[in-house]
């Protein structure tokens, strides 16, 4: 819908700018406060810009707290989530491009897991990990979230757009099945994989509940679990809290702003037919 009236356009622009500012306000306040000294951050009335900007809180995260370890653990989880994405892609290809006995039943299992609320499986998944002796271990944190049924489903849908003839031609040329997958299918799937890589990175970087449930030692904590611990232990040290939050949020925002074009284009459900 296009509104042509000049005054209404000015009003719309003004409203957007105001509401955009309000939405961004928590981020702005987080960044400004993270650079303030302990005393200044609690000052009433608050200063808007830090009087003596300091990076001390960020230094403290690494020197006095274990944020180095938390960062390492988070990066390990991010790395394995990418392997999980590869497994999701393989499964999506398997379901989309092969015919085999029992395919419908196995795919139905995938769809069922997609529809069940996370809270239903939270307790029993913990019991399963406990039986396998994986509680308080890195595999225990990584394995339950590795496969995402919804991603298998999306990738399978995408595979339908790749012509079978292309795969047949590669087979006639004598290419092996895995060679076809890695050299032909993955490059052709770039549009959907680009979105998936970004969303998987964001989801694994942000993962919180599962690491919290499974990890007991702080040697296994991720950034989000460590940040939650920091919040409990430094209740009024808001400068430090804001620095910890900024350290979690800024890398994600940077990644997102660089690649946002791919993510945002993935949201057209209008293309989905009823």
């Amino acid at each position, binding site marked *: 819908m296009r509104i042509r009236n000049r005054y209404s356009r000015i009003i719309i622009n003004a409203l*957007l700018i105001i509401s955009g500012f309000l939405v961004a306000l928590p981020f702005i306040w987080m960044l400004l406060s993270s650079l303030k000294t302990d005393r200044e951050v609690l000052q009433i009335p608050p200063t808007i810009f830090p009087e003596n900007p300091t990076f001390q809180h960020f230094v403290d995260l690494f020197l006095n707290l274990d944020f180095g370890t938390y960062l390492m653990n988070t990066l390990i989880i991010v790395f394995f989530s990418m392997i999980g994405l590869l497994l999701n892609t393989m499964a999506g290809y398997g379901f989309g491009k092969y015919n085999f006995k029992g395919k419908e039943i196995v795919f139905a299992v995938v769809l069922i897991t997609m529809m069940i609320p996370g809270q239903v499986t939270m307790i029993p998944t913990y019991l399963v990990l406990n039986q396998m002796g994986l509680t308080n271990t890195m595999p225990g944190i990584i394995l339950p979230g590795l496969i995402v049924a919804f991603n298998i489903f999306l990738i399978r849908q995408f595979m339908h757009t790749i012509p079978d003839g292309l795969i047949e031609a590669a087979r006639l040329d004598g290419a092996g099945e895995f060679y076809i997958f890695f050299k032909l299918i993955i490059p052709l799937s770039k549009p959907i994989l680009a979105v998936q890589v970004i969303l998987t990175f964001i989801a694994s970087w942000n993962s919180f509940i599962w690491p919290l449930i499974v990890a007991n030692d702080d040697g296994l904590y991720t950034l989000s679990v460590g940040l939650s611990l920091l919040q409990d232990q430094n209740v009024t040290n*808001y400068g430090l809290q804001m620095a910890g939050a900024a350290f979690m949020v800024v890398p994600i925002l940077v990644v997102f702003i660089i690649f946002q074009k791919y993510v945002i284009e993935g949201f*057209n459900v209008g293309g989905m037919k009823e």
Partner: protein
Amino acid sequence: MNSFKMKITPFLFILPAVILLTIFTFLPIIISLVISFTDMDLVGLGNLSSVQFVGVENFVRLFQDEVFLQSMGNTFFYVVIGVPLAVSTSFIIALALSNVSNWMSNTFRVIFYMPSITNIVAIAVVWGFLYNEEYGLFNYILSLVNIDAVPWLNDILIAKISLIILAVWKSNGVSMLIFLAAIQSIPKTYYEAAEIDGANWWHKLTKITIPSVSFATFFVIVTTLIGWLQFFEEPFVMTEGGPLNGTNSIALFIYQEGFQYNEFGYGAAASFVLFVIVIIATAIQFKLRKKENL
């Protein structure tokens, strides 16, 4: 390639994912169903033979448990206020974005989407500071216009509303993008034809835009409703269900029973109640949608 190899290949592709999914998601669904009829707890975890079937006792107990009933009431409150608020504001933002220059639209959709990709603990840390009664920015701004300090997270009713504001802020980005894509795919000629017929903006909005995006609206309402029925992270990180269970939700209740009190069977029973509620709510949505289309 021989036929044995051709038979085995598909399984090489799907099995790694299917096995992991079976162990960590599908099997747990079945376990959940089974233990919801038992008294499984921490003792039972150490010695499985001591676990006993208790029939529907867990379910009977749930509906006599005041904390659970309160959590259900709170969840209902979140849904009734949160869903209309989230759907309408994301639609209005999308509508505004479709009426400004490309540069404005591209910049602001990124800003509105940012909260959706922000870590929930970081959100809790920042909003906990903003909502702080003494040092928070919100109460300071209110004090400038002579409004008394608001107990954002310490009053049963206000705390629920504070969490709703936070959740709408966090979740609007995705719905906004879905609406925006739908609005932008409406052919311009519809509006041009309407203008020739002398339609004003209200006619265009109600007769062209809203009907044209009805599938996106349906999609957003269903996913938003399911999301709010499972409202969990916000009360978990902001209030832990307090004050006096005033912000507790069904999903948080399940977590507390499972991981704070180690009442695995009881928690699993609650999770099935939630599941049934989600299914019923979704089924009603689809029914209504069908009726509309007839």
